């Protein structure tokens, strides 16, 4: 039976259908999760898709953070449930404090919509285990607030603890510079494109693996990321976890 993976739909999400499609290509049974309910329906993993949740008003991701579904996602994550935030989903996770750091306005002030290359820093995570090797993965970015920021102490700790998941790289495969390097689309510090929480079960990245999930889209480099998540979720579901999350209050 296919692994059930939830895709959260906020008002303003616009990559939920692409993500659903990509997850199906990766072998999962996608389940849409509406933002007004904190109940995740027993899914084995959750993806927060890209878009402009709640219009990105105030700050990208912050209004979504307080939506009912995020109570469910936070409880799910606290029990070890796998959560992946893509683009706006990453911004939501950062605002919720489920992954470290913040996403600032792009350093060049412009919305950037183009293909980039990223390299996984680790191949042993639920999000990269089927990538196979540390090679550049080509996929699009499309965001106005993607400049990864954390203070220097936090950045050092993230590097030390292996929480940097993806970095933007140049044509030579080496990490992009901080600023004025076209390989770094938004000026992210230390060219960080994706990070994980300390427990390694919640991750976010700005590029869109679901928009690079089959050759027809110009690149299938994103598919191994989705397949990694589905495989890891399947193992956890098979092992009886993550635990069924019960929240206070009535159903």
């Amino acid at each position, binding site marked *: 039976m296919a692994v059930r993976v939830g895709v959260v739909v906020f008002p303003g999400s616009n990559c939920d259908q692409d993500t659903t499609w990509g997850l199906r290509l990766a072998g999962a049974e996608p389940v849409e999760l509406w933002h007004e309910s904190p109940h995740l329906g027993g899914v084995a993993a959750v993806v927060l898709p890209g878009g402009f949740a709640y219009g990105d008003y105030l700050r990208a991701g912050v209004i979504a953070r307080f939506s009912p579904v995020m109570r469910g996602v936070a409880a799910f994550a606290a029990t070890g449930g796998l959560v992946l935030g893509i683009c706006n989903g990453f911004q939501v996770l950062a*605002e919720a404090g489920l992954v470290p750091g*913040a996403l600032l306005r792009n350093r060049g*002030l412009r919305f950037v919509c183009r293909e980039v290359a990223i390299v996984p820093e680790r191949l042993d995570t639920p999000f990269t285990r089927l990538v196979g090797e540390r090679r550049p993965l080509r996929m699009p970015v499309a965001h106005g607030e993607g400049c990864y*920021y954390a203070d220097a102490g936090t950045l050092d700790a993230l590097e030390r603890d292996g929480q940097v998941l993806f970095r933007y790289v140049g044509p030579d495969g080496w990490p992009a510079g901080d600023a004025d390097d076209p390989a770094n689309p938004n000026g992210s510090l230390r060219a960080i494109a994706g990070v994980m929480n300390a427990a390694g079960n919640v991750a976010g990245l700005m590029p869109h693996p679901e928009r690079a999930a089959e050759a027809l889209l110009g690149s299938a480099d994103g598919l191994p990321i989705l397949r990694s998540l589905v495989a890891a979720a399947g193992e956890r579901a098979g092992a009886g976890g993550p635990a069924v999350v019960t929240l206070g209050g009535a159903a």
Partner: protein
Amino acid sequence: MSAPDAGPAASFRFAVNVTPKEGILDPQGRAVEQSLPHLGVAGVAHVRVGRRVEMTVEAPDEAAARAIVDRLAGELLANPLIEQYAVEVLGGASSATRAGT
């Protein structure tokens, strides 16, 4: 309709000014700075672009209203990782919104 027995509530008007923390890159501020030569303006530096949020709060007294505003500012209006805020008490709830001139 009668109000719940929470005592008479009054209205208080506040503004929360949110700005990028010191040391946080502010590309909007930099863009403003870079435009100044086009205006023939010199001697202006350290431009920081933020956000101002005004609100009316009903509470038994100003201290209680202020506590609500502080909570909103810290949890919602500003992201403490990257932004700082200052709360300003405005002159009464009756102060009308001024239209642009």
